[in-house]
């Protein structure tokens, strides 16, 4: 069974090209354009890794990551966050302080 990458992004184009590239690398790629119930999404697709756009609609990447990290079943799944560089550094710092 192929390893699954779950991508959260509201940009469909971005999802498309990402899906192509990753599938060419022999990954199973699942995409979501919004994030309202990450636990449920994870449960559905059982991803090995999650790519998360920070500005994903509904709850936003931040909140979503927090949720995933708080569930025992999902907390070990690596999550890669997309976001503009200058904001990231600040937010990473904050995250670190939060205990991620």
């Amino acid at each position, binding site marked *: 069974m192929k390893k699954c990458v779950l991508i959260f992004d509201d*940009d469909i*184009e*971005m999802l*498309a*090209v*990402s899906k*192509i*590239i990753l599938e*060419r690398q022999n990954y199973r790629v699942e995409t979501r354009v919004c994030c309202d119930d990450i636990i449920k999404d994870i449960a559905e697709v059982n991803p090995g890794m999650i790519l998360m756009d920070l500005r994903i609609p509904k709850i936003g990447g931040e909140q979503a990551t927090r949720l995933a990290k708080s569930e025992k079943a999902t907390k070990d799944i690596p999550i890669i966050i997309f976001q*503009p560089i*200058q904001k990231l*550094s600040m937010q990473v710092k904050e995250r670190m302080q939060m205990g991620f």
Partner: protein
Amino acid sequence: MLNDALNIISTNEDAMPAKFSEEEAFKNIFQLLRLKHGVDFTYYKQTTIRRRILRRMVILKQEKIVEYLQYIEKNNVEVDTLFHDLLIPVTSFFRDPEIFESLCKTVLPELVENIPVTTGTSANPLRIWIVGCSTGQEVYSIAICLHEYLSDKVSQIKIQIFATDISEKSIGKARSGLYDKGEMDGLTDGQVQQFFTKINGTYQVKKAIRDMCVFACHNFLKDPPFAKIDLISCRNVLIYMEPFLQKKAFTTFHYSLKPKGYLWLGKSKSVGSASDYFVPLGPKEKIYSRKAFPGKFINTASTHSEGILRDTDYGLRSNKKRKDDFQKDADDILLLKYTPPGVIVNDQYDIVQFRGSTGDFLEPAPGKASLNVLKMAREGLSFEIRNALQKAKKTKASVSKENIPLNNGKKIVSLEVIPLLNSADLHFLILFKDAAFAPGITGAGKDLKNLAGLTQHENIRIKKLEKDLVNLREDMRSITEDQEAANEELQSANEELLSGSEELQSLNEELETGKEESQSTNEELVTVNQELFDRNEQYNEARIYAEAIVSTIHEPLIVIDRGFRIKSANQSFYKNFSISEQDTIGKTLFELQNNGWDIPGLRRQLLKIQSENEKLISWEDTYTFPLVGKRTICFNAQPVQKENGEGLILLAMEDITHRAHIQLERNELLHRFQNLVEKAPVAICLLRGKDYVIEVINEGMFEMWDRTLEEVLNKPAFDVLTELRDQGFKELLDNVYNTGERLIMQEIPINLKRKGKLENVFVKFVYEPLREPDGTISGIMALAHEITEQVLSRKKIEESEYRYHNLVHTSASLILILKGEDLVISVANDSMLQSLGKGKDLIGKPLLTVLPEIIEQGLGDLLHNVFTTGESSYGYEVPVYIMRNGKMELSYYTYVYAAQRDLIGEIDGVSVIATEVTPQAEFNKKIKESEAHFRQVAELMPTKITNADAAGGVTYYNKNWLDFAGMDFEKLKDFGYHSIMHPGELEEFKKRFQIAFETGTDLEMEMRFMNKDGEYIWHLNRASPVKDESGQVKMWIGATTDIHNQKTKEDTKDEFISIASHELKTPLTIAKAYIDLLQINLQKTSKEDYNYAQKAAESIDRLNGLIGELLDVSKIQNGKLGLKITEFDFNEMISTAIEGIQYASPNHTIHRSGIIKPLVKRDKERLQQVVINLLSNAVKYSPNANVVDIHIAEKNGEVTVAIKDKGIGISKENVGKIFERYYREEGRATHFQGLGIGLYISYEIVQRHNGTLWVESKLHKGSTFYFKVPINYEAKKL
């Protein structure tokens, strides 16, 4: 040594090989002693003597007597030493106390009893002779004994103790009577105390004892003895003498003693052979009484006998010894039987031995028993014996007498006198021979008888002749007897004379010593006498003086005795108390003038003087005297103790009635003076001496000084007033003191220390020299009056007058003083006259007549009003028309009209003080207009304007401000300004304002202020100082512009760029992704298509870069260009950058040089961005070149990077602009792509690293871009 000595004692003849035999040596020594000291030791006990000599030899370490002899011959001192050694001075006080006791008990009472006690000097003194007294202890012991025994009777008996010794040294000591402590043994403490005086640790015999004794140097064996002695003590001498000498001594003593005299010998001695002379007093005692023995004293000085003679009485000793000697026995028998009988007589003709039967020739004479041969000789023989003896004595040869008829011729004898020349004493042997054996002679006698009968005539004649012969013989015999008796008397007289002479000699010696003593005493006495004489003269002089003083003295003077009887009085006494001399002398003091002198106080005082022997000094008493009335007398009394114990009192009186009166007056005066001084309103003090000791001071003075009385009294003025030392007062005082001139200072400033600090006061003072009666200056009286207040008020008045005058005349103000109701001008200053265009003649004229034009202008009424009501009138820039030079001119005045009041407050005039403000008023008018204009401008300005003074206090907010804040000026000024600032910028603003305020620089800050609706509106707040000519900040002008819209627009724009860039980047990324995918596919199929895809990808990359730049600019704009500081290898960073450029621009070769050794702590990415930017620019702007140099270096903690191209270069005027945002050099832009923001970004990045970026360039030649950053990043300080 000791053995040698013993040898000598044993007199071993073998041990004497020297030229002298031992005996001769001793003899020689004795000879020497005799020559030197006149003492012959030959008959002294030889063992003792020789032991002494040996002792000397041991001390001198000589082994043989001969050596000692040689030594002693050369050494005179040794003779003395030996002599003294031989004398063995062993003695002590009360030696053998028990004998002393018996002496006191038995002998002394008897002796004393025999002395007739008489008053005064006794004719028969008690005489005691102490033979061999040594150093005198025994003498004094006996004297003490006597003294104790006689106790108080001692003065009634004259006692003479003769003490003799042959040693002068001992006698010397005995005479002095000085003994040290060790020698005082044997005396009881009481005796020591009674009879000795302690002098410097030694004890001296008291005079009473010493005076009993006479000491003399005397050899009793040689010198004539003393006579009529009651007691002889010879306790130490005899043991050293051979019996021969002892015997001699006894005879001498026997001679000396009185018939009932006593002899006292030493313990181990007895009279022995001399028992004829003395009989012991008791069985054990050594005191002997004199026997009444008829022996004669013979002066037996052994001056001629040098041979060793044995004891003459050896018969006693030799009896037993000779028993076994038959020859001697035979001799004895022969002697007894066949030698003629005879006797041995001494030179006194006393028989000392009978030999054979002498009964035929001698018979005891009737009367006093006598052994004298002349007395014992039978009749007829005596005459012949005497003749023969005398002849033998003379010729020293035997004398024979034959045919001496005895018993009237019945017996014829012959005799022979043979002098025994070899004996120590002269003795004679008288041998008798019976001439019966010579019949011839007897027959002849018979024949002669028979012949007588032959003739009658002849018979008769013979008988007659015989009778004559018998008579002659009888006569001769009686004459001879007479002569003998006379001789005997002469002899005894001579003896007595000798004794007396000896005594005299002893006394003489004593006297000689005494004389010497008295001579020295005399000398002392002479000196003392001289002194006394001098004293006496002085005394006389003093007495004369005293007498002169007493008689001339003004004060009465009397001398009274113990009974207050007047012994003497001087003239003054009589005069003063009107009393005559005869009424005074001999009377007691108190009974004078009918007991008028019984002054109780005086009596008490005098009794006190008598009892306590003290002086009375200046005792004063007032008493009413009988004749002279009430007097105050000052008594001085001195007890005078006379030598005879009479106590006198010298009483001096001084009539001080007058003086007391004066004193009283003076006291009162003084008191008044003191009172005066104390109460004086001026400060007074008396300064005594050169030190200016404050002697008298009143309250005024020490209060002026702010000192207490205790602090200043009796202290030198300048010790107390230390602050005055340097103010010149000492010099002033010195001047007064030295010149005696009074000094008056009307007003002088002084710095006085009051309440701990210096105070400037003014004083008026007088220094008056104080003169002694003789005119010398002894002090200064200082009178002072503090006039500080007066001076100060006067000064104030003067000052205010001066000021007033000055004010009036120099004032730019116009001043006019008008007097009275008519307002007559009394004072008009120059300014006024000038302003009015009038001269000085104005003064003295009523104002309204001089300036009639002002009346219609209402000023006259105004002035009158002020005059009547007293209320002042003020005018401000009042226009007044004044007639000047015939023209009415308008002037503006600001003035005050005030009522002038006299001293009692009545208005007596009006003062006019005015300022002509014509130009000022006009100027003010213009300013006002201008101000109104600007105010209007400011009010209307959309910008908010503030004014603040130099200290920052706001003086003005324009309308816009007030409207914005919705507050009035006061409210905004007090607290509004800061309160409407955004809290986020308030602190920053304050900080910056502080800096601006301190440095006087502009302030510019974008900040938010809250409007009246509570919204914060962005403003650009500017404050700028307005400075005066000297550069001092005069005021601040603030301009606050509403930039809210701009600000929000800018934010929107930045936000937009940021979002846009992001949004742009997404599709680009997607596009890039697809192209990458496309390229992967095309790589396999079409080379050409692949190249197109490649180009598309590059374009996308460039587009990405551009968007990145835009984002950076946006960040810089927003101040959001953050730095990520890490430590990195600068060289590697450069390598990566070069690699990238080299890859993109393969046409250019990039030369690299230099190395940075330490790690650099910087933002690696950003610095790389700069390097890439500069390198790409270098490549980009050098299209015609193919080399770009890059050099890196490290120096002083800074990294320098230089990038050099050989490109188009930059024109000079553009060099400063190239780092601006969006700047693209003219010309460049046409040829080269880019936004023109790369250098701007690089510049900003380098700036952020605290570094610098600069360029050196020549147009068409190429450029070199440099940047320099510190190796270690340090956060930029604010």
